[in-house]
């Protein structure tokens, strides 16, 4: 390893044609195919280069033009999303979106998927997923203040799914716990559609002073490029291309060398060192080496600045002997950053890193020729125009046609399932035992939720809330998506996801402010999948526009299929909201015996796509619940108004499991289990009233004296509202009645079912085959 800055080659970049490296394979159609490039895309590469690429260059293109980095199947659709608002400081295009939160402070936030790595090695896959998203945040200059995780698995009666679930939860926990970032929420959903293809999406939020915002740009000709943090090993090579391929039977075997191991301790040091570095003024740009490692970080930094870079592979600190430039360029070793420093400040940079027991090495410099040039011991091995590499990836608009199976499922007549009347206590208790409804405490008890002493609302309520130290303000965040609705109707399902996220925020007392999203879909080359993708994006765009919650970033994860079967379309929405006064933070749980229970919004006879149908009848069918965005907006304003006036003792979004589940959660989720006595006048089928999942509803409680003010506020906003019952005593009866049906049990029974279900399901983990 030489410690001198490599000198820019004197050759004209346009004419530098790297000679093939000894030992590199020849470029054949098979090699091109193995790199995930279609013959047409390869032609385009040749067009850009004006010649046949070297093997190293092919590797670089394959990574940058993968779906993961190049967004070739999604870019055109993503351009339909609303991205602007006065409070947006940084929209899509950077490592994370950034919004203004007042008082000179800015919030960076982003969601990212680690689905495929987690399918292969759940613990490391999830851990490195959290690591990656944290780096996306602190690379912007923001200190991470919270993480959330959005997870999907197949049903828990399979040992493999329990193994995946347990491993992912432990991975998410261990990493965030060690770095010391509180987990404030997330979601998990179990359905056979995710068998073999779990989804692991992690979201992070970070806070900075506005002026501390820094971008991933490599500007200033002659400025040194430095590799910072962990050394580069052979792990995760070609992870980017891998993340864009379908999983097949033998992928466990084939993908072994691609497992990346996370080191949260190094991440914590890297976090402190990076923030110190950014504040020091010694650097002009910084970016994490995420997917496609050095390749994507260096070329993107050059692309954004309109500059070029020249890197010497022999100077990259490596963990193993004999790594080829190809391997170094594509390694996805974790906990690394690429930094463009100011010329002459190399020593200062090294000193800051050394304080945190980390390394920093000069590996190249910024050039002005617009080329991404790679040297090995002074010999050029790759020389690619940077802009076409980062932005020239072909993008496709494909044919989208709705699948026949979906049409059929949606057209299914559900009348017969609406028939049951009378005592519905048993199905209710069974529903509480569904892992989709039951308490998720088993998960978040493994997460440090209180480190940083700012968590005001912990996981378990509608949205997490962290206060901003030194001000009255607080930030709320949530992730949401129901894949079943999205499968039945991707446009309505995506709208429902946005609406639910916003509802979760207002129920916590926060004003919905901005969105990040993770598009988890199957293979977009299939028309029915592309249809889902397009429809979902359109639905998301419509809802986000209307709610004035611009999309500031996100991530796309396609090809989530196992043996040709796709997951449900799952456009996960991560939404952040603001509270002007932390004391307005509202929780989902009843607090006082005798309080009035009210419901806002309209209950329709909708059981399509419901958890009730899935658990009781093993059926995913019918129309997804209708989403009335204007009504949703009125509802949001009404609830926020009530929270701001301090009228609410509790507010809870009504979602999976319907009104009965929402009442149960409000009754037992808090410190004490309080009884519930509810009388409904609806003459709709009781199954629909209790378990139907009509959107746009909120269950509230308030002091009896405030009931009329709550009703007035609702009326003022044009939101249907009614008092439906009363909060009972601790350990009391839990009763919901309609003229046609009833649920009668004790709140202690509800509590036992609700909290006992997931531990009981997972108790079996340790006694079963993990692999």
């Amino acid at each position, binding site marked *: 390893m030489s410690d001198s800055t490599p000198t820019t080659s004197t050759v004209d970049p346009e004419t530098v044609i790297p000679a093939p490296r000894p030992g590199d394979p020849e470029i054949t159609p098979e090699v091109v195919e193995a790199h995930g490039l279609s013959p047409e895309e390869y032609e385009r590469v040749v067009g850009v280069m004006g010649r046949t690429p070297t093997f190293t260059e092919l590797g670089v293109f394959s990574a940058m033009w993968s779906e993961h980095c190049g967004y070739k199947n999604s870019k055109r659709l993503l351009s339909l999303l609303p991205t602007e608002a006065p409070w947006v400081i940084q929209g899509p295009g950077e490592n994370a979106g950034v919004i203004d939160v007042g008082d000179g402070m800015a919030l960076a936030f982003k969601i990212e998927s680690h689905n495929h790595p987690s399918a292969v090695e759940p613990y490391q896959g999830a851990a490195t997923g959290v690591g990656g998203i944290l780096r996306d945040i602190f690379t912007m200059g923001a200190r991470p203040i919270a993480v959330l995780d959005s997870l999907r698995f197949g049903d828990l009666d399979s040992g493999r799914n329990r193994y995946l679930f347990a491993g992912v939860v432990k991975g998410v926990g261990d990493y965030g716990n060690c770095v010391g970032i509180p987990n404030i929420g997330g979601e998990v959903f179990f359905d056979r559609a995710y068998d073999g293809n779990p989804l692991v999406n992690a979201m992070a939020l970070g806070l900075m002073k506005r002026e501390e915002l820094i971008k991933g740009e490599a500007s200033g000709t002659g400025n040194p490029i430095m590799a910072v943090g962990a050394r580069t090993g052979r792990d995760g090579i070609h992870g980017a291309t891998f993340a864009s391929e379908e999983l097949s039977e033998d992928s466990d075997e084939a993908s072994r060398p691609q497992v990346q*191991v*996370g*080191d949260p301790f190094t991440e914590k040091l890297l976090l402190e060192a990076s923030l110190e570095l950014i504040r020091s003024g010694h650097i002009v740009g910084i970016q994490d080496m995420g997917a496609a490692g050095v390749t994507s970080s260096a070329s993107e930094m050059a692309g954004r600045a309109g500059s070029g870079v020249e890197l010497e592979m022999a100077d990259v600190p490596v963990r193993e002997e004999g790594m080829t430039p190809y391997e170094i360029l594509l390694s996805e070793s974790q906990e690394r950053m690429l930094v463009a420093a100011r010329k002459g400040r190399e020593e200062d940079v090294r000193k800051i890193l050394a304080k945190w027991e980390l390394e920093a090495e000069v590996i190249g410099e910024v050039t002005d020729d617009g080329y991404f040039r790679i040297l090995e011991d002074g010999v050029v091995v790759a020389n690619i125009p940077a802009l076409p590499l980062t932005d020239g990836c072909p993008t496709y608009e494909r044919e989208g046609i709705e699948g026949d199976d979906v049409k059929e499922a949606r057209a299914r007549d559900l009348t017969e399932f609406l028939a049951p009347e009378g005592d519905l206590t048993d199905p209710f208790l069974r529903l509480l035992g569904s892992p989709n409804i039951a308490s998720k405490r088993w998960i978040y008890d493994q997460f440090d939720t209180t480190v940083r002493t700012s968590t005001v609302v912990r996981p378990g309520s509608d949205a997490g809330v962290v206060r901003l130290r030194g001000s009255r303000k607080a930030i709320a965040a949530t992730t949401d998506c129901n894949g079943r609705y999205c499968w039945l109707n991707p446009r309505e399902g995506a709208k429902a996801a946005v609406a639910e996220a916003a509802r979760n925020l207002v129920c916590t007392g926060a004003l919905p402010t901005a969105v990040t999203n993770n598009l988890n879909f199957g293979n977009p080359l299939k028309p029915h999948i592309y249809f889902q993708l397009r429809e979902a994006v359109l639905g998301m765009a419509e809802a986000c526009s209307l709610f004035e919650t611009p999309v500031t970033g996100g991530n796309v994860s396609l090809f989530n299929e196992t043996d040709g079967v796709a997951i449900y379309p799952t456009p996960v929405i991560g939404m952040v909201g603001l509270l002007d006064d932390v004391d307005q933070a509202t929780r989902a749980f009843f607090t006082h015996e005798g309080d009035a229970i009210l419901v806002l919004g309209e209950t329709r006879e909708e059981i399509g796509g419901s958890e009730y149908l899935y658990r009781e009848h093993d059926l995913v069918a019918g129309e997804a619940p209708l989403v009335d965005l204007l009504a949703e907006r009125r509802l949001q304003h009404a609830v926020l108004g009530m929270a701001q006036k301090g009228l609410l003792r509790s507010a809870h979004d009504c979602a999976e499991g319907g009104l009965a589940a929402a009442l149960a959660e409000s009754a037992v989720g808090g410190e004490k289990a309080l009884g519930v006595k509810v009388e409904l006048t609806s003459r709709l089928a009781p199954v629909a009233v209790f378990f139907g999942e009509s959107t746009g509803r909120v269950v509230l409680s308030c002091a009896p004296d405030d009931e009329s003010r709550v009703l007035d506020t609702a009326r003022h906003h044009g939101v249907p509202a009614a008092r439906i019952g009363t909060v009972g005593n601790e350990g009391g009866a839990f009763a919901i009645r309609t003229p046609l049906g009833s649920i009668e049990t004790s709140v202690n029974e509800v509590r036992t079912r609700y909290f006992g279900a997931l531990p009981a399901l997972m108790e079996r983990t340790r006694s079963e085959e993990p692999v």
Partner: protein
Amino acid sequence: MSRFDIEVRVKPRPGLLDPQGKAIHHALESLGYPGVGEVRVGKVIDLTLEADSEAEARERADEMCRKLLSNPVTEDYQLRVRASAGKEAEG
């Protein structure tokens, strides 16, 4: 039926990052031990097994390793089987 002592050593696969090993290496260096090369940390699992023969014990233990005791994605294992005879002496 005889009893066999099984020792399974489970180690991170070569090439994979071993953060524990890295931290220990660093600690040993700062404690002033020179000349320490790479450090790798694994698990050692001791158990006893009843079987008709050593071959059978080995076979069963090997299956346990593949199924439960090691994670084939990230770990390799080594197996040692011996007839039980009180404490082994080693050092």
